[in-house]
């Protein structure tokens, strides 16, 4: 095995150009074969609103635990799993974690010694870097018949950045840092499939079909297996959960699933900035007026200032400014970068309590 690996990586595509008579051993063949055994195709019943009724999943235990995307096909009453070799089982959803946009299902049968990823071990590895080569495995477009291996695609980690995507008018469930991929890997049915490095080591979970809110183009991404998310418990506490803990506790059957219908409460504090009329869809947040004595007045903001960044994030529209400010509570501080005439100024703004007599809208 060791020798074979050397040989495998020794014969790159460059070599094939130079020495076309070399043995037909390709750089990713054994990795593809190995990973494919740990990947499953998922099928739900029917399909609705143009969404596919099929998906991809990753085996994470010898007993048939599967990590996949927390998407609509899991709502199917009859979830079916096809292994790489065509073996077929029914499966049940054990736990979902919307904040990480993943779920764990289990094959509804006594199985043992299935090939699988050691998730805890993989998640303990350092994350991949921008420019690293990767492979994506998926049931995209269900091109593979149910007894065929998955589609393997190659790419590099294009960027590591926060996911800002949407489907139609719905924002992406997960909003942490993801691997953006320079291959077209997020196709129908791909979500939930694994992304590995060249050596077949698990890096992330393929994402959904989303359009970027920054570029309005379709994006290709995977949620890193090291992903973390803040989860609000009903009692008002916020806990940080990482994917490894979610996987471990799910397999152990003791994950505490949060209420999927929980509403995020608006707790926005008072700033005292009155912006210009939101006349156009994307009117930039120009300051029209500052309430006397307000936190904004104390911070030295003035009419005609343009708010450009809010805590380092670009706020190109009044709508976005309001959305972000709603999340900031009284007593919390935000940093605004504002454009005044031709200069950029940094202003710290500590929000206060909403004035009693007039509730802000």
């Amino acid at each position: 095995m060791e020798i074979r690996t050397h040989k495998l990586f020794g014969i790159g595509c460059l070599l094939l150009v130079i020495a076309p008579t070399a043995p037909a051993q390709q750089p990713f063949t054994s990795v593809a074969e190995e990973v494919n055994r740990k990947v499953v195709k998922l099928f739900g019943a029917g399909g609705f609103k143009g969404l596919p009724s099929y998906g991809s999943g990753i085996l994470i235990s010898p007993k048939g635990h599967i990590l996949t995307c927390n998407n609509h096909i899991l709502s199917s009453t009859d979830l079916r799993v096809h292994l790489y070799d065509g073996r077929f089982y029914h499966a049940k959803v054990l736990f979902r974690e919307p904040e990480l946009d993943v779920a764990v299902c289990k094959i509804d049968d006594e199985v043992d010694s299935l090939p699988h990823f050691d998730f805890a071990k993989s998640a303990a590895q350092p994350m991949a870097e921008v420019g690293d080569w990767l492979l994506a495995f998926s049931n995209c477009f269900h091109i593979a018949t149910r007894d065929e291996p998955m589609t393997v695609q190659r790419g590099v980690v294009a960027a590591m950045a926060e996911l800002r995507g949407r489907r139609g008018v719905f924002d992406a469930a997960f909003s942490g840092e993801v691997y953006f991929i320079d291959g077209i890997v997020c196709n129908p049915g791909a979500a939930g499939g694994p992304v590995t490095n060249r050596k077949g080591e698990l890096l992330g979970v393929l994402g959904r079909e989303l359009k970027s809110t920054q570029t309005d183009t379709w994006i290709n991404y995977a949620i890193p297996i090291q992903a973390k998310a803040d989860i609000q418990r009903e009692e008002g506490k916020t806990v940080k959960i990482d994917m490894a803990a979610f996987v471990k506790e799910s397999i152990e059957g003791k994950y505490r699933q949060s209420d999927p219908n929980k509403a995020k409460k608006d707790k926005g504090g008072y700033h005292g900035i009155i912006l210009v009329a939101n006349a156009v869809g994307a009117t930039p947040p120009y300051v029209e007026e500052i309430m006397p004595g307000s936190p904004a007045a104390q911070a030295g903001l003035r009419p005609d200032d343009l708010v450009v960044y809010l805590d380092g994030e670009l706020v190109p529209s009044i709508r976005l400014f309001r959305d972000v400010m709603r999340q900031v509570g009284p007593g919390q501080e935000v940093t605004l970068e504002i454009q005044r005439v031709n200069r950029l100024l940094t202003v710290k703004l500590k929000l206060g309590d909403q004035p009693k007599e007039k509730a802000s809208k």
Partner: protein
Amino acid sequence: MKHQKVMILAAALLLVGASSLLAQDLNDQLEKATKEAARKVAPSVVQIVTLGGTDIVVTGAKGATFRKALGPTTGLIVGTDGYIISSSFNFINSPTTILVAIPGRKDPVPAKRIATDKSRMLTLLKVDANSLPVPAFVPNKDIIEGQWAIALGRTLDSKRAHPPSVSLGIISAVGRIWGKAIQTDAKVSPVNYGGPLIDMEGRVQGILIPASPTGADDTAGFEWYDSGIGFAIPMEDVLAVLPRLKEGKDLQKGTLGIGMKTPDLYSVLPEIGKVAKDSAAARAGLKPGDVITEVDGKPVIRMAQIMHILGTKYEGEKISLKYKRGDKVLEAANLELVSIAAVTAPPFLGILPMRDDPKLGVEIRYVFAKGPAEAAGLKVGDRIVKYGTGAADTAFTGDVAGRAQLLNWLNTLAPGTEIRLEVARKDGGKSDTVAAKLETLPGAMIGQDWVVPDKLPAVASLKRALEPLESSNPNVKPAKVDPAKVDPAKVDPAKVDPAKVDADAKKVETGLIKRNTPDGDHKFWVFVHEKYDPNVAHALVVWLHPPGKNKEEDVEKFIDRIWEDLCQEHNIILIGPASENETGWLPSDADYVLAAVQDTMKRYTIDRQRVVAHGLGVGGQMAIHLGFNHRDVIRGVAAVGAVVTQVKDTLAAQRLCFFLAGGALDPIVKTIAESRDKLVERKFSAMFREMPERGREYLDETPQLRELARWIETLDKQ
């Protein structure tokens, strides 16, 4: 360090070739080289943030859409003193503020737009900064198909300390887009437009842009984003043009000003069909029938070869030509190319013709003050019976209406051309031949506004639209018809649409009528004023309502309170298709909007020279889109509170005029005003009207509304 890396790679290759005892992991080396190359250029790759500006139309997989997202984009430092080059795509919405975040520097800095290269679609920015890192570049001769290529961008990750985004591919081709671009299979998209394409040694090969061999506007090629077909302007060419961009003047593509005899680029000799006046070709004495044989010393036998050479040239650059005239080979050296805009101004004789006139020739309805017709002594009621350039030797045929035949001919001429007209005078019927020097269509001159005349003659039509046209062919006998009683059987079916006659026979329905497009899928309303006469050609105004404003009361208000009287006074039929989408218009809606137009044209007598797309806000944006993309139907665009972002070239045979209006309080009003200049730069007739104390609102109760109605009335001027 770098050399070492290359050595290792080379050594690795040799070793592999020699034996399989290789200890090096080649892919590992490539991966590391990719990252190192990106790191090397990273300090010169900046993030650009734009604020303000307008909605943008781009072409996507499902036709064009309005782009909603405008995240940060990318640029590359090209001068230690603060010059940054980027893709023009990143600025098509005319942002009011541009900010540049430079790696390693704390705060973003405001940037000024210095100039745009409209041939290669690059924009030069300048920030106040010094000692900026400028990356090394690969000379053109060293860029070869098959080499590695890495596309870098700064859209996704806002952290300046991070590396830029990376996409790995190869050079797919060089010399694409008529010699201007490198092609790569690295993923190119808004994520990296404006960023560099670099080689494995961290040297810049080119600047990434959207591009298409068939389109030339700012967004052409966007539909290919992430497809494995991406383009970059070679860095050597970017650097070559930099000094000219720094002067602050936009650069235009240079053209000869010729039209070929056939549109075939590949299989026939390049024979000239038309030479535009004042063009490079005209100055060199080229004439229709000449066959170009050599450009800049290179022999050519196909138009495509000429385009490959000309594709890289700018306005003002010089070329040399050899061409064949008969048996002789002639030469034109030092031929200065002109911009597209310089050669296509529409001509103007200065008359309104009488409509619905089945007789041969053109009766003059109105003579514009100070126009060529007035100078030539033409009077209202005179009938133009013959025309020509050398002599008035072309007669009217009756195949099409006289005013259409005259306009088609005028459209082939440039302003400044001297023409001769034979006219039958109204008084006494005697014939005169007059000379007139054509001018530029009003509204199509930079810095010159046009005001539609206050009073136009009330009589616009001879009210004989349903009669067959008189023919110059003696074998064709015009049927004598009483316009009051049109008998469908006697009307030449080729000339009059039977549907129209049917409609007439049945007594046309007037008022507000609800209809479906012929496929039954889309609703629209039609408003026909009560004095509608099918013998009178009517203008057709297509109202593209603002989002959510298509309820009954909106339509009633629009007609009863605003347009009803104007429709009667100026013979206008209004139609109002309903947008599919709650949030506004998608350019793909154009299909059923046009189906509604065609349906209405079948039912009523519509003057094809006065079909106007009209809208407010997003509806106005849609009107502009419709105008540019469906010029076979639309002749006028009247847009309120909307901006022209990408101006297409004028087409002489399909004249398109613009009436733009904006409220003084609308934040985009300045950009609307600039749109007018942009249009006029490309020789479109365009006017702009500002409504005081208004935001993004309609024209009701403003003098601009009446002017718009008169503008529609004059769309058939020539």
